[in-house]
């Protein structure tokens, strides 16, 4: 099975496009921070699932994709959707149920969709989007588009039936799929070890005749490198890859979950490995007025996020009658 020993990582220094990667990760981080605030202000309905701490996974993978490639993700999908380039204001708007939202307010926090950017949908049923990713890959293979299909999902999702059926089908048909496990160590509140009898989830790839690769999910360069290899395999007709990115969600599972079930010190040790700090550290190590460049990026993203939120807040709720639209084509 492939391992990530020889693969390029942040240890070898920040990549040329470090600023772009930093901006993309910061964009997600600040976006999610704002959503938390909006939720407590009751501007977000139902529930919301944030991904602070996991930004390097979605940004790393997204940065390995080309136009035409597609992504499906979960209810914890704000990061994936933004990493694919979705507008901040339309994303804020959707989560607040405003007319200008990505889905005109009809989908909400768990269903962000931006087909123009390759995001086919965010799914609120654990594992249910994996078969959909297989289907997108089937189209790519059948139509010869050369596109790759990516599915982001959690560690807990590897225990549901749809995971098994999807990897098996993609394996037997050698479909161009990247199955990306965002292993943040927990389901909702259960540590993965309490629900899964093996430690290395990537090993499940062996059941489907595909490589299983484990990578530091807080190292955006390592993630991108692993994703690129998988994209090359996929486009080369060698089939799917199961990519396990080890990461951590800084917050709770959803809403106001304080994450009390986490052993003391665990969060701190992961905060020290914060993917954004890690990239900035590498940039600084590279010198070249890194400090100013980092501050410029931070400032720019802060402004973008603030202005986008302002715009979204100014949008009206959708017309109630619009609820009858799009049930059928």
């Amino acid at each position, binding site marked *: 099975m492939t391992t990530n020993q020889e693969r390029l990582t942040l240890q070898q220094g920040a990549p040329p496009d470090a600023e772009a990667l930093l901006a993309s990760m910061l964009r997600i981080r600040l976006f999610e921070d704002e959503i938390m605030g909006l939720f407590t202000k009751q501007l977000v309905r139902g529930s919301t699932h944030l991904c602070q701490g996991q930004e390097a996974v979605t940004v790393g993978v997204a940065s390995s994709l080309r136009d035409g490639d597609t992504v499906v993700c979960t209810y914890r999908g704000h990061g994936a959707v933004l990493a694919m380039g979705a507008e901040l204001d339309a994303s804020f708007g959707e989560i607040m149920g405003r007319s200008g939202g990505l889905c005109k307010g009809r989908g909400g926090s768990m269903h962000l969709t931006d087909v123009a950017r390759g995001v086919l949908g965010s799914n609120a049923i654990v594992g249910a989007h994996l078969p959909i990713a297989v289907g997108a890959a089937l189209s790519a293979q059948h139509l010869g588009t050369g596109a790759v299909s990516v599915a982001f999902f959690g560690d807990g999702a590897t225990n549901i039936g749809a995971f098994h059926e999807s990897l098996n089908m993609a394996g037997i048909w050698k479909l161009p799929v990247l199955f990306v496990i965002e292993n943040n160590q927990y389901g909702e509140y259960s540590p993965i070890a309490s629900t899964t009898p093996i430690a290395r989830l990537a090993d499940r790839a062996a059941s489907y005749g595909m490589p299983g690769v484990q990578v530091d999910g807080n190292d955006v360069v390592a993630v991108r490198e692993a994703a690129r290899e998988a994209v090359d395999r996929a486009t080369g007709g060698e089939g799917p890859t199961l990519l396990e990115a080890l990461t951590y969600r800084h917050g709770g599972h959803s809403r106001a979950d304080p994450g009390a079930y986490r052993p003391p010190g665990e969060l701190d040790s992961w905060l020290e490995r914060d993917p954004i700090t890690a990239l900035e550290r590498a940039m600084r190590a590279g010198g070249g007025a890194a400090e100013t460049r980092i501050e410029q990026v931070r400032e720019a993203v802060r402004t973008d996020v603030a202005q986008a939120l302002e715009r979204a807040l100014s949008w009206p709720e959708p017309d109630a009658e619009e609820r009858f639209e*799009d049930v059928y084509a």
Partner: protein
Amino acid sequence: MSEKINYRQVIARALADAMDEDPTVLLLGEDVGAAGGAFKTTAGLFERFGPTRVRDTPISEQAIVGAALGAAMTGLRPVADIMFADFAGVCFDQIVNQVAKQRYMSAGQVTVPLVIRMANGAGAGFAAQHSQATENWFLNVPGLKVVVPGTVEDLYGLLRSAVRDDNPVIVCEHKNLFALKGVVPTGDAAFVPIGKASVVRRGKDLTIVATQQMRHRAVEAAEMLAEEGIEATVIDPRTLIPFDDATVVASLSETSRLLVVQESPPGGSWGASLVSRMVTEHFEVFDAPPALLSADETPVPYAAVQEAAWLPTAERIADQARRLVAY
């Protein structure tokens, strides 16, 4: 093509014609390819269109339906076969939470031109887990269309319309009608619009609404009744979602008596839903209580006498009709 063809064979013909017409049409399901289908309903397609357009799948209904959905969202027009309709149970989430809702949740960003074929119905001795009228499982789930063809012509015509439709369409092929014969018209005349009922027989005394196997028993009953001077209209809705209420109402305005016959238990059924719509919206037309003749409220039993008794018969339909007319 004016020679006779049966309900089983016409499926392969309809699919072949659809595949000839549109290169993005692709079939997937367990043994739909090399073996020609568990019911031989796709015989010859694998040889003709090859393994990439006629795909044998693993035994993975969630992946079959979900992959068909993902493919439909990205440029193909897949036709997924889940064999016995009862297997909709193992991929129910994909059908009701995914296929039915992707377009709505995305506010129209995605389109789902998808057909899901399944062999429904009782009467052939397949017992409790292989005989259900699963068309009733989808009635409460907006976003799907459901067709239940009862003749060779309707099966061909509705299957062709389903493949051309830009929405998910569930096509229920009744496994006890495979031997039924018919003749398919040529050209566009062969297309049967989704959502349009057919008036099988016209009579002034009562309106009988039934689908598939029950439609044929209803016609049988109507013929018995005719000999007694009772003239029944028999309507086959052919589509359950969207349902052609207008045709039923038009008939009721003449007969003012309604008898719905179905081969499933009454709870949550299309028949109960129809009766409810008719009385809540057209109460005045009724001169007698509407009647709903259903199968028993039990799983489908295996023993021949028990399964036969479980299903409404032509005799029982006629009896119910007599009581209604005598009311």
